[in-house]
């Protein structure tokens, strides 16, 4: 086909030439002069260029060929305008790159399916109590598993950590106790070996362990012979039966070890402690709604059977994916929205540049139209130029995205699951290409249509006069839109910044400098005896306090900012026993000296002493929030509440604790989290069962005199007091604080980068429009100055145009932001999404920068020399 086409078109030029010659000859024979004859012949023939093109089109896949041609042409045009090309490509690259980078993060974190069999059929089951969604009690899980018929498989697990003895120092590893069908529920086969047998999930048989590929490779030398060999975990021997592939992380909690739950009869009868993750795989013909309905029925039955423990308690199921990744969705969607806005601004900016250029290209385009290019052809050609721009922008954007993604992977918050797997993959590239194409058309269509509709006559007039109104309206509209979009982004970023500032000023409730925390977990095998466990921790505290450079030491079940204590319902003395009268409160078990070591202000009463032992009056410290909510307006000292353990006469026999002191509120969960009611019990008076609640694990806190964190010394102390026990997560409190804020800081920074970019782009937009207007109106300005306008007036005129654009943009942006900032509401700490201060501040910044951008062209207008401007014509 191509060869034939070439052959056919080969002689076309000559054919046409000869045709016209013949016609000329005919005309001469009819008596015309040669000039007349040639003119008439050409006239009769028509538009030669058009004819040639039409003829060529007969033979070609027209659009494709023209497109390639147009792109070459576009490339040449861009090379001729390197300044324009650079600004446009850079702007687009920013927009496209930011979108591609955020999309690839979203893809890795949210969109990629979990590495388990058919995740969409897996439900995550929680209990529902009032507006809380606690984990599931063993009793409820067991009943649910036995009664429900909706699930093909239902499994449970709870996280646990273990001291693993290795050739070198003992390691703390994160793992899970898992019910027997755990691996089968997720449908993942072990890399080597097997999962648990049904027998192994029974008490007394559960001395087996499945390990992760990661642990196997990093700690156990990747030796296959490990299967069948024992591991020493928490001082007990477990036989390795299987290795799970490294992609197996169904709950995204980096588990390295799985041990059978092997619930005892006592555990199975426990409906009061809620700590199980429950996951169920739906049967093929059962919908999630049907399963939920069945669980509601079962829950109603359980409420009747266990009226105290299960009062008001139900089940709630969500898809596993949503349960694990739901938190990430909001932030990532917000980020994607932000970069979307950024892309729009970038497109508006490039469209604006194009419009300005189209003005100066009017004559070129008119010429093309005059020699026979059809309007469609011109639009296509201009669009092709945009596609060329877009392709460069896209390539730049993808490079930028590569860089951005590697930056995010390194600096991104550690608590975002799967963030590390972010990479620019085929999906991201496809997305980037889509964005590129979309934006090329978006920023190119308006200028191209406009150019093609230019009247020839108008274009050939030597027009340097003021542009027609509608033309400037479009450009002004684009600038107004840019300002509005930028304001939305800035408002979002501003709110996060303000929230971060407020958070950084939050009083943690204690003295953070020179405070070091490390976590120590005693194994159940060696320290089953509560007395033994207590004495071990007490010795640890004494020895740590004796270290050089250490002022004092203490232990606490959970150091501040690290996630609070265990939940307990407290009953104030004098109130009838009813669930409704319980005050949900967080327990912290502490050694005497904790309050003074951490320097929590003692508001009333006294601290614990070494004399507060189990055989004396049971005492407690409460935080101000608990004091206020339990005894509003009264002095809590000497008052009592019941909690934590059944008395000698059974469950309804209260064990009273007397309040001896009130301490200041401490941020237990993090600086940006609400304060909950909290109470402290001395380690020497805690109920024996509380050792199980806290997993025999406590935070050792020391107040140093400054200097380096004495990690080695602490390791030595712990190892000497409790051989084979590691101390882990050793960190200064200040580090803990900053890592607790890492996530929100990162989000804030990212959004701020986007907002600043938006600010820059939109001010470039304003600058561009005003510069262009001034350049176009040089003659007008000259005339007005000759007629007596002062330089100040001229300048004010330009500035007020800029101010008008900015003002309209601000108004539109404020309106949109008032609605739009709702999406960040849940990320804000004590700032409302419509915070007036933030809105005022970002508006002022935007207005200031916009005026600055207007000032430069305004000055240029002021400097117009009337004589030069007029002579220019």
């Amino acid at each position, binding site marked *: 086909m191509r060869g034939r086409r070439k052959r056919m078109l080969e002689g*076309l030029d000559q054919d046409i030439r*000869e045709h016209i010659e013949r016609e000329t000859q005919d005309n001469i024979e009819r008596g015309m002069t040669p000039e007349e004859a040639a003119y008439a012949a050409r006239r*009769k023939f028509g538009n030669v260029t058009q004819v040639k093109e039409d003829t060529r089109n007969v033979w070609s896949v027209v659009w494709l060929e023209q497109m390639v041609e147009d792109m070459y042409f576009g490339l040449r045009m861009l090379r001729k305008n390197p300044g324009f090309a650079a600004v446009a490509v850079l702007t687009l690259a920013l927009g496209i790159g930011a979108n591609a980078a955020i999309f690839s993060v979203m893809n890795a974190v949210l969109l990629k399916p979990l590495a388990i069999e058919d995740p969409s059929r897996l439900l995550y089951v929680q209990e529902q109590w009032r507006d809380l969604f606690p984990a599931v009690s063993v009793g409820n899980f067991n009943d649910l598993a036995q009664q429900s018929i909706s699930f093909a498989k239902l499994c449970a697990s709870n996280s646990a950590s273990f001291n693993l003895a290795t050739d070198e120092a003992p390691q703390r590893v994160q793992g899970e106790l898992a019910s027997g069908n755990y691996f089968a529920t997720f449908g993942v086969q072990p890399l080597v070996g097997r999962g648990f047998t049904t027998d192994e999930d029974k008490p007394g048989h559960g001395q087996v362990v499945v390990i992760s590929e990661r642990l196997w490779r990093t700690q156990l030398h990747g030796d296959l012979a490990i299967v069948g060999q024992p591991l020493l975990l928490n001082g007990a021997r477990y036989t390795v039966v299987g290795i799970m592939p490294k992609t197996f992380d169904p709950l995204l909690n980096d588990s390295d070890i799985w041990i059978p739950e092997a619930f005892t009869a006592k555990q199975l009868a426990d409906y009061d402690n809620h700590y199980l993750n429950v996951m169920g795989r739906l049967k093929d013909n059962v919908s999630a709604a049907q399963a939920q309905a069945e669980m509601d029925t079962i829950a109603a039955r359980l409420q009747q059977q266990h009226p105290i423990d299960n009062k008001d308690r139900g089940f709630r199921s969500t898809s596993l994916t949503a349960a694990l990744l739901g938190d990430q969705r909001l932030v990532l969607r917000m980020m994607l929205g932000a970069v979307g806005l950024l892309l729009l601004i970038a497109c508006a900016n490039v469209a604006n540049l194009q419009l300005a250029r189209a003005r100066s290209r009017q004559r070129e385009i008119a010429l093309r139209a005059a020699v026979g290019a059809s309007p469609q052809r011109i639009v296509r050609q201009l669009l092709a130029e945009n596609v060329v721009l877009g392709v460069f922008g896209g390539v730049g954007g993808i490079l930028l995205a590569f860089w951005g993604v590697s930056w995010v992977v390194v600096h991104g918050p550690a608590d975002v699951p799967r963030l590390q797997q972010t990479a620019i993959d085929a999906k991201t590239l496809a997305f980037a290409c889509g964005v590129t194409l979309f934006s090329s058309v978006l920023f190119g269509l308006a200028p191209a249509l406009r150019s093609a509709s230019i009247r020839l006559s108008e274009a050939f007039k030597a027009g340097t006069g003021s542009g027609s109104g509608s033309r400037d309206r479009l450009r002004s509209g684009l600038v107004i839109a840019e300002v509005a979009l930028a304001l939305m982004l800035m408002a979002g970023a501003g709110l996060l910044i303000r929230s971060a500032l407020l958070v950084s000023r939050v009083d943690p409730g204690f003295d953070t400098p020179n405070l070091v925390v490390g976590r120590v977990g005693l194994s159940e095998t060696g320290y089953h005896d509560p007395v033994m466990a207590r004495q071990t921790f007490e010795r640890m505290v004494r020895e740590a306090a004796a270290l050089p450079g250490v002022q004092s030491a203490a232990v606490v079940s959970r150091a501040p900012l690290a996630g609070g204590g265990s939940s307990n319902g407290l009953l104030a003395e004098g109130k009838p026993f009813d669930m409704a009268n319980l005050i949900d409160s967080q327990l912290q078990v502490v050694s005497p000296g904790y309050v003074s070591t951490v320097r929590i202000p003692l508001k009333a009463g006294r601290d614990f002493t070494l004399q507060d032992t189990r055989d004396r009056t049971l005492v407690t410290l409460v935080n101000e929030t608990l004091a206020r909510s339990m005894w509003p307006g009264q002095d809590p000292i000497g008052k009592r509440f019941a909690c934590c353990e059944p008395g000698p006469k059974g469950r309804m026999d209260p064990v009273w604790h007397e309040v001896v002191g009130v301490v200041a509120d401490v941020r237990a969960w993090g600086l940006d989290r609400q304060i909950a009611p909290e109470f402290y019990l001395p380690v020497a008076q805690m109920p024996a069962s509380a050792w199980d609640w806290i997993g025999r694990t406590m935070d050792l806190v020391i107040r140093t005199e400054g200097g380096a964190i004495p990690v080695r010394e602490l390791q030595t102390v712990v190892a000497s007091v409790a051989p084979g026990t590691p101390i882990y997560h050793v960190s200064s409190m200040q580090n803990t604080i900053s890592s607790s804020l890492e996530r929100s800081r990162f989000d804030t920074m990212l959004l701020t980068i986007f907002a600043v970019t938006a600010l820059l782009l939109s001010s470039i937009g304003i600058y561009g429009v005003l510069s262009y207007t001034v350049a176009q109106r040089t003659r007008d300005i000259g005339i007005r100055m000759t007629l007596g306008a002062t330089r100040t007036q001229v300048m004010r005129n330009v500035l007020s145009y800029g101010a008008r654009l900015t003002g309209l943009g601000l108004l539109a942006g404020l309106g949109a932001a008032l609605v739009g900032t709702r999406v960040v509401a849940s990320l804000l700490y004590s700032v409302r999404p419509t915070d007036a201060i933030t809105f005022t501040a970002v508006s002022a910044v935007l207005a200031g920068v916009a005026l600055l951008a207007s000032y430069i062209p305004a000055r240029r207008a002021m400097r117009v020399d009337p004589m030069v401007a007029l002579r220019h014509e």
Partner: protein
Amino acid sequence: MSTKEQRERIELLQGTLDLLILRTLRWGPAHGHAIAKTIEFRSEDVLQVEQGSLYPALHRLIKRKWIAVEEGISENNRRAKFYRLTSKGRRQLEVETSKWDKLAGAIARILRPREEGER
């Protein structure tokens, strides 16, 4: 006259022009200028086609294999491209002609209904 109007007229005439070319070539091969002249002459200059529009039409017909092209010597001894009707083109001419007759008849009946009735 704007380019747009021009184009529309050419497109309007396209099918007709094809038919006229085919008809012209029934008398034997001809070169481009001769075809244009013949059409003008036979229509008694009523059809004032821009001669240029002949070329896209010729190539269209070649592509459809209704006409073929061969090198030849023109009346004034110059090399020229001669277009001739193929057998496929001949068949097509009959189809097109009868189609045209039907169309022309139909339009005539609409434009002159009374005359039709009288006849």
